[in-house]
Structures are given as structure tokens and as C-alpha cells.
């Protein structure tokens, strides 16, 4: 389980933007007016827990923008952030967007398992970065050790929720950055992003059985480890599973 000293590093307000920066931001969600995703089971007002009072901006045709003020983690890769500068694109023509993941703290939520609220959800799995959709962020005893102009406050254990990725401007991130991730923990962030976007899991037994009778039209080797090889199989109906084979 990672601890704060391994995960966070201080930043200077003059430092360049970087993947792993943590900032206080306004995040916008477009939705149908009054829509309550992911459903009444979770929150009848459709709120993001870290900020219970979103500002609502009405749009035409029964749509609206809900704006949440919350902490978020920059996941855009540092190379991408720098790319336009390296290409000598003038600053006014920079793409101003950065992708960020909202940060959900333990005190703000009661985690509901897929089976319903009655099931206990263990933070141990989140701490171990087991889920593909989260990056664990450990507690900090005193954030002023990272940001001296901030009051000596504790930071609760939390996670960056990759299901809530959205874009914000570079300027907004620059204005209210708190700290950043260490280079070592950025590797873990990148691993989680790779898992989230491309590599969910090894197929379960019943999914492999469902392949019977279908024609395999694609086999992409993914990763070799020892004498084992993981392969993504695509069937003729477009479904896909990842299996592991042992080399003979």
C-alpha cells in the first residue's frame, strides 16, 4: 500500500504543468435536465459526492450543465502537455485542454457495490490499486508540508476516479494546484490508465466458454511473462476476450 511520501511531491506555483498535478477545479458535466445518473440508488440529485451543490446552467432542448467544484488529478501525459511548445506552436494557438480525473475522498462517500448498498466495499482493494477505474491516493497528515501557504490540514484517503475523466483548461489547473505525484507513482497512474482504456482483465471462465462455436478472426499477443503469454482474441461476432496461454 503506497504511503504519502512515495506518492506526492510539492510543486512551486511557477512550475510547468505536468501529469499528476492535483488542483482545485470547476468540472463541467453536460446532461439532460434533471437527469440523475447513475440513478436514484446512488444520489437522487445526480450530484458528485465531493461537491454536493453543483451550479446548474440551463441549455436549450432540455439539457443542462452541472458544474462541480472539486479536486482533480491531471492525467494528460507530460509529453503531450509539452508537445505543442516543443513544436514551437505559439502560445495563443496551444490546445488549452487537459484531461483530469475527479478525486473522491473517503469522508464524502459511502461506496456502493455492484450488488447494492448492503454489500461491504473494501478500501483495501482501492489501496492496492486493484480496480481498473481508480488510482489510490493515500492520506496526508499535514498538507502544509507540501504546500506551505495552505493551513496545516490532513488530507483524507481518496482515489482519482477514471470513470469521471473530463477536460479543463491549462489556466484553471495552474491557478489552484496543490501538489503533484512523484515520478515513481506516475508509472502507477500510467499503468492504471492502460488498464482502464485497453486491458480490462483476463476473461472469466464463462466468457471463454461463450467463444465455443465462434470463429476466432484475430489474435493479438499482449504481454509475455515468464513462460506465459496473454493474447487478445476477437471472434467473428466482434466480441473479444483476453486469455493466457502457457508456452510449451
Amino acid at each position, binding site marked *: 500500500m503506497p504511503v504519502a511520501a512515495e506518492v506526492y511531491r510539492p510543486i512551486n*506555483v511557477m512550475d510547468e504543468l505536468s*501529469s499528476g498535478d492535483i*488542483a*482545485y477545479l*470547476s468540472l463541467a458535466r453536460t446532461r439532460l435536465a434533471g437527469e440523475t445518473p447513475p440513478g436514484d440508488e*446512488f*444520489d437522487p440529485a445526480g450530484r458528485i*459526492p*465531493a461537491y*454536493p*451543490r453543483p451550479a446548474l446552467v440551463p441549455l436549450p432542448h432540455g439539457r443542462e450543465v452541472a458544474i462541480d*467544484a472539486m*479536486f482533480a488529478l491531471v492525467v494528460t501525459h*507530460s*509529453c503531450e502537455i509539452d508537445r505543442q511548445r516543443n513544436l514551437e506552436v505559439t502560445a495563443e494557438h496551444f490546445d488549452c485542454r487537459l484531461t483530469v480525473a475527479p*478525486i473522491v*475522498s473517503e*469522508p*464524502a*462517500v*459511502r*461506496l*456502493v*457495490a*455492484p450488488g447494492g448498498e448492503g454489500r461491504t*466495499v*473494501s478500501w483495501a*482493494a*482501492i489501496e*492496492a490499486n*486493484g*480496480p*481498473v477505474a*481508480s488510482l489510490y491516493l493515500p492520506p496526508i497528515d499535514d498538507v502544509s508540508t507540501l*504546500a506551505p*501557504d*495552505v*493551513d496545516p*490540514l490532513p*488530507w*483524507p484517503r*481518496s*482515489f482519482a*476516479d477514471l*470513470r469521471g475523466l473530463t477536460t479543463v483548461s491549462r489556466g484553471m489547473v495552474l*491557478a*489552484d494546484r*496543490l501538489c503533484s505525484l512523484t*515520478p515513481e507513482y*506516475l*508509472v*502507477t497512474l*500510467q*499503468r492504471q490508465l*492502460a488498464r482502464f482504456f485497453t486491458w480490462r*482483465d*483476463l476473461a472469466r471462465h464463462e466468457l471463454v466458454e461463450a467463444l465455443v462455436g465462434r470463429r476466432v478472426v484475430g489474435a493479438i499477443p499482449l*504481454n*509475455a*511473462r515468464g513462460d506465459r503469454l496473454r493474447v487478445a482474441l476477437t471472434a467473428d461476432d466482434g466480441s473479444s476476450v483476453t486469455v493466457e496461454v502457457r508456452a510449451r
Partner: protein
Amino acid sequence: MTRLASILEARNITYTAVAQHARLQPRTVRQLATGETPIDNVAVGTVRRIASALSVPLADLLEPDLPFPGDGSLSRGARLSAAIREVMWSATPVPYPSPVERDEPDEIASLDGEDFFTDMPVIDARRG
């Protein structure tokens, strides 16, 4: 926990008792106390009646204002300090879909970055 919920808990008063004194529906008091309905979203008269029933100043029931990102009237340190207090230590936990999908250990998650990215192009995570 909302300020209203804190007062009710400290005095060991039920929603129904407050509702009777304030001539409101118990559900209204419950929704305000749990934060399901933000107290800023209801009529001033409703808040005034609850304050009167509890014999507290109306202002005692209002939640503190959350500083907005980039609020120029506050220093960066003051904005971030208030945001940590109000956002990260939110007083009203709400149900949230867990990212944990199953309980079994996931061997992929236990791989360190070097193992995971074996055979993949090198990714430079250590930009200075």
C-alpha cells in the same frame, strides 16, 4: 454532517419533533438534515421556522460558503485550505458507485510498472 444534523444530534431531537414544532413535513426536515436537499435551495420561511423551533439564529443552520476555484477575493492558500475542509472532508457522505468490481485478488494489479509495461514502448514518466 450538516449544521442542522449536528444540532439535532447534539440535542437528541428527532426529525418528527422538529417538524411538529415548525409545522413542516418530517420528510422535509430529514432531507435538509441529511443534505439531500441543500438548505440554500428552500424558502427562507422554511429555514426560519426550523430555526425558531430549535431556538437558534437562522444563520446557525446555513452551510458555510464554498470558495470557488480561482476566487480572486481569496489567496491561493486560503482557497485551497477552505476547499480541503469543505470538499475533501465533506460532512454529508452520499452513496457512490464503487470502483471495486470484485473481491478476488487481481494479479495484474500486483505487477509493478516495469513488469506491466514489458514489451511495450518505453514511456518516459520521469520528465524533469
